[in-house]
């Protein structure tokens, strides 16, 4: 088992080596404004038995949980996904392992409502599957981790794991090549004291880093400098400096999402993008790259986008959209929510920003600008409730500008220490695409400040449903009886007429 603790500060914030004291197994430093990332690397044989069978039975497993509370991210830890529980999964040969996946996840995370991959998951590529659901907190996971990781004698272990409940995101992925499970928790950007202690049987590496911009840095690269310490091994932090090409960048703009009123059964999710630097330019002199904004939505099965509606260019343009780039297939356009087992659908929409202002108004461009894009969605019928309404929560989409190389066969980004595997949408772009992330912000004056849009759905009111069966039956009986009565009248009159006719014939 190995542990890596990384504090990442913004550009310009850096710590002198003298500010940090390394004393035996502990590292102490001043209070800094940073994000803290904790990564635990667990070897296969150190895993609990249930997890061992699971990860060895899959060809690829990647879980990412994102909290619904807004948080500020820091370069290069910028990758974003809609808040909730994401799973990307390639099954192995053994179906039994796949079929136990959901119950194992339930043991670990608590309220996971999938049944089996075949029923609940959607397919991304031919054998790769995706699952998403809303998951408000990690409390069940924290309890599970305490039970599995902490020794009864170690009091600091539960306390340390409790800090996970404040994490902004959690990433768990199994590396089949190295046979290790990586668990990475990322905290929000906040003031905190630099502090780490070592544990027996655990190699702990601590990095106190910040973004740097040395003169040698190329435009597509991100520079990092700071201090690295291996607890119990180093007596003082050693300075480090490195740079790498990062595919996740900060576009320094923000967006919020909310449903336009009245929502009805076809609500429109409006994305409101504010931006003082709206047009990321392709890095360097690479002219074969174009940058366009996208929204990646993970929609629970209560709500969906109609790909046929999103095929008409005029309609799309009226909503400030360009194209539907991807949607989960298939999406049932008719079924009510209560008969569906598939988790929902993932949608990638290309947005259509306002045209760039003329170049002479460079000054104006610096000003805060705002533009919107509307995403038309459709609600399914939900199960009846008492009161006649239900609430559907839709996580904020991930919004980013993608700078995609136009030529095929561009080079993929080499792995870097801050990458956590795929995000669901990155695979929908060409290799070498750079993602410039737009920061999600809660709606101003919103109730809870969460990155979730809520919509009230009218459903059948159970409190008033008492008369439905009897009333319908009564109306049908009355209508039917009236029609039959008229038919009987026709037959009786016809009978008399018929008789008269026959009499006439005989005469």
């Amino acid at each position, binding site marked *: 088992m190995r542990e890596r603790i990384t504090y990442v500060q913004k550009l310009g914030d850096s710590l002198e080596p003298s500010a940090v004291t390394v004393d035996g197994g502990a590292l102490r430093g001043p209070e800094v404004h940073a994000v803290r990332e904790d990564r635990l690397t667990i070897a296969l044989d150190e895993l609990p038995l249930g997890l061992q069978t699971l990860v060895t039975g899959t060809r690829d497993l990647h879980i990412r949980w994102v909290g619904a509370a807004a948080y500020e991210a820091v370069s290069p830890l910028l990758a974003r996904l809609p808040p909730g529980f994401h799973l990307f999964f390639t099954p192995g040969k053994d179906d039994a392992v796949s079929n136990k996946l959901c119950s194992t996840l339930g043991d670990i995370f608590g309220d996971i409502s999938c049944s089996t991959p075949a029923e609940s998951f959607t397919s991304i590529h031919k054998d790769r599957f995706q699952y998403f659901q809303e998951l408000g907190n990690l409390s069940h996971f924290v309890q599970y981790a305490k039970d599995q990781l902490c020794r009864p004698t170690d009091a600091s272990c539960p306390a340390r794991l409790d800090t996970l409940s404040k994490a902004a995101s959690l990433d768990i992925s199994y590396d089949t090549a190295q046979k290790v499970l990586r668990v990475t928790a990322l905290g929000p950007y906040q003031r905190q004291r630099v502090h780490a202690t070592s544990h027996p049987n655990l190699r702990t590496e601590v990095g106190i880093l910040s973004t740097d911009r040395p003169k040698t840095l190329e435009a597509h690269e991100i520079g990092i400098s700071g201090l690295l310490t291996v607890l119990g091994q180093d007596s003082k932090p050693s300075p480090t400096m490195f740079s790498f090409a990062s595919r996740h960048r900060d576009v320094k703009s923000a967006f919020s999402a909310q449903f336009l009123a*009245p*929502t*009805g*059964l*076809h*609500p429109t999710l409006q994305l409101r993008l504010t931006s003082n630097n709206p047009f990321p330019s392709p890095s360097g002199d690479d002219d074969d790259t174009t940058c366009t904004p996208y929204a990646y939505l993970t929609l629970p099965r209560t709500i969906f986008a109609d790909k*046929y509606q999103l095929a*008409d260019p*005029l*309609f799309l*343009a*009226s*909503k400030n959209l360009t194209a539907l780039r991807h949607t989960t297939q*298939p999406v049932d*356009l*008719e079924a*009510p929510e*209560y*008969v569906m087992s598939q988790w929902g659908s993932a949608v990638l929409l290309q947005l259509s920003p306002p045209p760039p202002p003329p170049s002479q108004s460079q000054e104006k461009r610096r000003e805060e600008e705002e533009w919107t894009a509307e995403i038309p969605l459709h609600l399914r*019928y939900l*199960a*009846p409730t008492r*009161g*006649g*309404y239900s609430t559907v929560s839709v996580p904020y989409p991930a919004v980013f500008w993608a700078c995609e190389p136009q030529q095929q066969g561009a080079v993929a980004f080499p792995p870097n220490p801050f990458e956590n595997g795929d995000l669901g949408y990155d695979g929908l772009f060409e290799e070498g695409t750079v993602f410039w992330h737009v920061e999600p912000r809660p709606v101003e004056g919103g109730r809870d400040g969460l990155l979730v849009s809520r919509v*009230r*759905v*009218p*459903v*059948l*009111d159970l409190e*008033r*449903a008492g008369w*439905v*069966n009897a*009333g*319908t039956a009564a*109306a*049908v009986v*009355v*209508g*039917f009886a*009236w*029609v*039959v*009565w*008229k*038919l009987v*009248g*026709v*037959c009786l*009159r*016809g009978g008399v*007429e018929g008789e008269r006719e026959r009499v006439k014939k005989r005469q």
Partner: protein
Amino acid sequence: MARPSAPAGRPSPSSPTTTPSLLTSFFRRPTPVYLSAALLRLVFLLYGLWQDANSPVKYTDIDYLVFTDAARFVARGQSPYERETYRYTPILAWLLLPTAQATGNPLVDAALFSSGKVLFAAADLLAGWLLERVLARSMDGTSARKFAAIWLLNPMVATISTRGSSEGLLGVLVMALLSAVMARRVTLAGLLLGFSVHFKIYPFIYAPAIVWWMDADRMGTAPPDKKPLTKPSPLSQLLAFITPARLQLAATSLATFLALNLAMYSLYGLPFLNHTYLHHITRIDHRHNFSPYNTQLYLASSSPSLSSSSSLRIESIAFLPQLALSCVLIPLAMAKRDLPSAMLAQTFAFVTFNKVCTSQYFLWYMVLLPLYLPRSSFLRNKRLGVAALALWVLAQGLWLQQGYELEFLGRSAFLPGLWLASLGFFLVNCWILGVVIGDVGGGSKAGV
């Protein structure tokens, strides 16, 4: 529903009798009527093209996009059922194959894409012409054209076909079936019946009416010397019922239906069966529509564990009144008196008592309406006619208002608003159906 401004063949009392009314001279010859009907559709078609090209709100019906997408799949050698929600016979996709062609010239492509609408509009005109022919059996040509104009010059009908709904094809099939029957062309009638049922299922309701109508007397095959001396035994009555014409109709229609289905099944396999037929059995019909059963079905479908026995009852009982009326009682009581009116009443009952009811189903009976109106008390008694029309429109309006509150404003209008509105519309329809039935019994036997 449009109604003629004046009763057939009678000039309105206010107009001077010396000059023939403009209206009558318009209907004297077929050319002006059919030309205006075609022109009406052309104008709607062109307007639709303009709206589609310039507005995010489309004139073209979503169904037309489904058909044309399916045609595109077929053009690529794939199954039309690759298109989600394509729930029709492959023949429809084949008919629309020209819409899948592309030349690169935008004008030609737009024309090709609209060719399906042109087909549906042409089907409208053909249905109108068949209507006129059937009407002309019992009235002069001018009056027949006046009544046929209720269909031909009806803006609602023209809108539906130029928006790309295939219901107009059903209209022409049903009218062709009726005129074949009236002309005693049994094989043709069987072919048309089998084809119509393959196309849209519901025309199967016409089979019992046509069979009942086709007795030996009517077909001129009754032995002339036979005299009812004694009361015939049930067995001989049954034997008398089985006539060559009836057997011929049953054989040709069944053979057509089965042959078409076998052919389609061999081409497209299970998806054909699932989407064209089985879908109608498994669908749960929970989305709000005019049907009186709608609220109940939504309630039942959402709580299968709670009331599995009762939900099973609703779904399996709901078709009983519908089929009893449209397939047994109305044919028995009405078919021999007035076959076209019986078919109207059957269709009306089928749509009114159906588990799903949307406004495009109204077209199913609208094509038969001009055949009934000449003898209807709605035209004889203006006040009754206006009341019926007003009630029909008002009940629909109430429902639509509740539907708007639900669908666009998000108000939970299912109960009691939508439910009561659908029951109200249902009862209005039942009342109208009762009047239609009463008219057939009250009037003289149709001279057909």
